[in-house]
């Protein structure tokens, strides 16, 4: 072998071995700190939601550290989150997770924002057998892939509007009608999330024998749903459902008012992020909005106290928020779940932590958390809030209701 080739190959070997030894040990635990990693949207179209999620993560991390941190096998650690910006693109999320795991050596992952990025992240964490607790990816399809290292604290998207169908059946019975006599008019955006929401509705409607009279799918760049609304106006369904992210909620609320379209029950997803009460006042009145969490719910834990305590503490710390979006709350819940798993596992070994996460069964201010085999939280329901006098009030399921539902819906004149 030529001498210089030897030198080159030896140097290369040394660098490779050095890197292999140095990198992973460097960052998963630094001194008395456990580092969690997350690729989250800081720029791009999900930057607002990404901020909500990371604010939630940070708030819980701070609170846990203030309360002494987490005890793992006799030693106490503080938590810290290392963030990367995934620019709201799933492909970038996957790249960054490779980096977090391979280069930074982080073994504990918090999820990105949104179903798309989470879908891109899950195969990576799965490949390296690194557990990920996510709080912002609700797509049903995340939990049909037999992932072993993915855990979600939130309810999946097929439960977003299906409680509306249950409520419709309940109200029909109460008013002496058969549930099967209720007609549904609905439109969903043609994207994985909204179609999951639709699937949940279709399954539930079938259960009650309700008829779906309008079933449109809105393309992603559609900003006008007047054709669909004209059809709904002609067919007069008892229940109107729309789901198409912020744009869908904004467009639906605005155009329903403009075209005088309503029904005894109207429900939308993304009411809060679209700020329909702020933008359209009276036109938003009586609309039902599903939510993962509301501050009036009677959940509590040791760390934050009740949901209302959490709400107040967060608003005090973050004056830029007027109300706490559920994206923030579930972010904090994900960190609590990690802290709980560290304690119970008594180890920093990813495999042991995975097993501990799978056995999670805890009360939080965000609701009960218990994972099924697929890793989704089956411990808490979706709740429905109705816009009443410009405020979101929990009305269903009845067990959690703060006020009775206003039925049939009454709009207000600004």
């Amino acid at each position, binding site marked *: 072998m030529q001498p210089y080739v030897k030198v080159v190959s030896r140097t290369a070997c040394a660098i490779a071995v050095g890197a292999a030894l140095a990198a992973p040990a460097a960052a998963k635990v630094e001194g008395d700190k456990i580092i969690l990693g997350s690729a989250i949207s800081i*720029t*791009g*179209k*999900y*930057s*607002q939601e990404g901020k909500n999620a990371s604010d939630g993560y940070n708030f819980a991390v701070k609170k846990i550290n203030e309360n002494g941190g987490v005890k793992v096998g006799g030693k106490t650690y503080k938590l810290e989150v290392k963030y990367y910006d995934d620019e709201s693109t799933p492909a970038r999320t996957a790249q960054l997770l490779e980096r977090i795991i391979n280069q930074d050596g982080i073994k504990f992952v918090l999820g990105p924002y949104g179903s798309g990025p989470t879908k891109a992240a899950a195969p990576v964490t799965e490949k390296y057998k690194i557990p990920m607790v996510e709080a912002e990816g609700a797509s049903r399809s995340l939990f049909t892939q037999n992932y072993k290292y993915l855990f979600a604290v939130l309810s999946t998207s097929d439960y977003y509007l299906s409680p509306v169908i249950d409520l419709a059946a309940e109200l029909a019975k109460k008013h002496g009608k058969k549930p099967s006599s209720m007609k549904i008019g609905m*439109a969903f955006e*043609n994207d994985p999330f909204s179609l999951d929401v639709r699937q949940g509705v279709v399954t539930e409607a079938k259960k009650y024998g309700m008829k779906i009279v309008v*079933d*449109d*799918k*809105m*393309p992603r*760049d*559609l*900003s*006008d*749903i*007047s*054709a*669909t609304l*004209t*059809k709904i*106006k*002609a*067919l007069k369904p008892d229940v109107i459902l729309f789901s198409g992210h*912020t*744009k869908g909620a*904004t*467009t639906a609320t*605005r155009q329903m008012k*403009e*075209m*005088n379209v309503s029904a005894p029950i109207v429900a939308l997803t993304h009411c809060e*992020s*679209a*700020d329909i009460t702020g*933008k359209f006042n009276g036109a938003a009145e009586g609309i039902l909005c599903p939510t993962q969490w509301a501050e009036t719910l009677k959940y509590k834990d040791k760390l934050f106290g009740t949901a209302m305590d959490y709400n107040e503490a967060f608003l005090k710390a973050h004056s830029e928020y007027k109300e706490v979006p559920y994206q923030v709350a579930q972010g904090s819940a994900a960190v609590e779940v990690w802290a709980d798993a560290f304690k119970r596992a008594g180890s920093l070994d990813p495999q042991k932590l995975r097993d501990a996460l799978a056995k999670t069964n805890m009360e939080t201010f965000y609701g009960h958390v218990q994972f099924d085999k697929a890793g989704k939280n089956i411990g808490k329901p979706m709740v429905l809030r109705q816009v009443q006098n410009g405020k979101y009030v929990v009305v269903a399921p009845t067990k959690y209701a703060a006020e009775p539902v206003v039925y049939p819906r009454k709009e207000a004149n600004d």
Partner: protein
Amino acid sequence: MWDNVQILTVAPVFNVQLWLNGLSVGAVFALVAYGLALVWGVTSIKNLAQGDLVMMGGYLGVAFARHGVHPIVAIVPVAAIMFCFGWVLYRLMIRRVIQLDLFTSLLATFGLAITIQQALNLAFGPEVVTLDAGFGQLEMFDAMVSITWIRLIAFAICLLLAGAMVLFLTKSRLGQAIRATAQDPRAARVLGIDTDLVYSLTFSINAAICGAAGVIVGMIWVLQPFYGIAYSVRAFVIVTAAGLGNLPGVILAALGLGVVEQYSGFVLGAQFQQATIVGLLLLILLWRQALLRRHRLALQ
């Protein structure tokens, strides 16, 4: 599907609703497509940032509205600002790619589109915003048909602007210079027309039109930094269908597109709205190809 057709025959009043909505949608697309056709025809730049200029105009409208200016009034200053922005853009960027090949200018305007999107995102945030004109709506046929006043006003504004453009291009010296440059830039230069000035003017006028359209879009639909693409795509479809240099054709095509979208949305469902449009475009192109072929054969 036939159920939906039946609704239209049993209750023909819904046809009125579809036509009204379609025409008002089409009028806004007409404006955007009109600007695109102008730039395309004169400078042969295919402006991929067309829709993003629309969004930018809309957001300027939002900025004015936050300072208490009514959106309708804001159209004027927004168009003026966008005109200047177009001028600067031309001087800084478009001018350097105008003589280069198609690919370079496509890349350049694509880059421009991304820059505008991200700048709007940084300045205004990614939330969906709307402008409220607050005019209420007009109801007809026992409230079976309703249309907002703002849509009717927008329709009138779009027609007015388009009419003014036609007059400007045919009657004024500057308009004639623009048309001459579009026909043959070299000949125009020989005859003493400052083609560089004509190009920058054309690009600025387009930006101003987009700005006005943006404010209208904000009053009728929604604004978001990344929604410009929908307007770019439709503008390209309209201009391709109508043919370059056929400005009345662009307006007719845009109005037609609006109405066809409404009908296909009603009868086939919202998921087929765009497929219908693209299908129709394909048919038009095939038909035009056949015409050309016949023409060629006749010449031979």
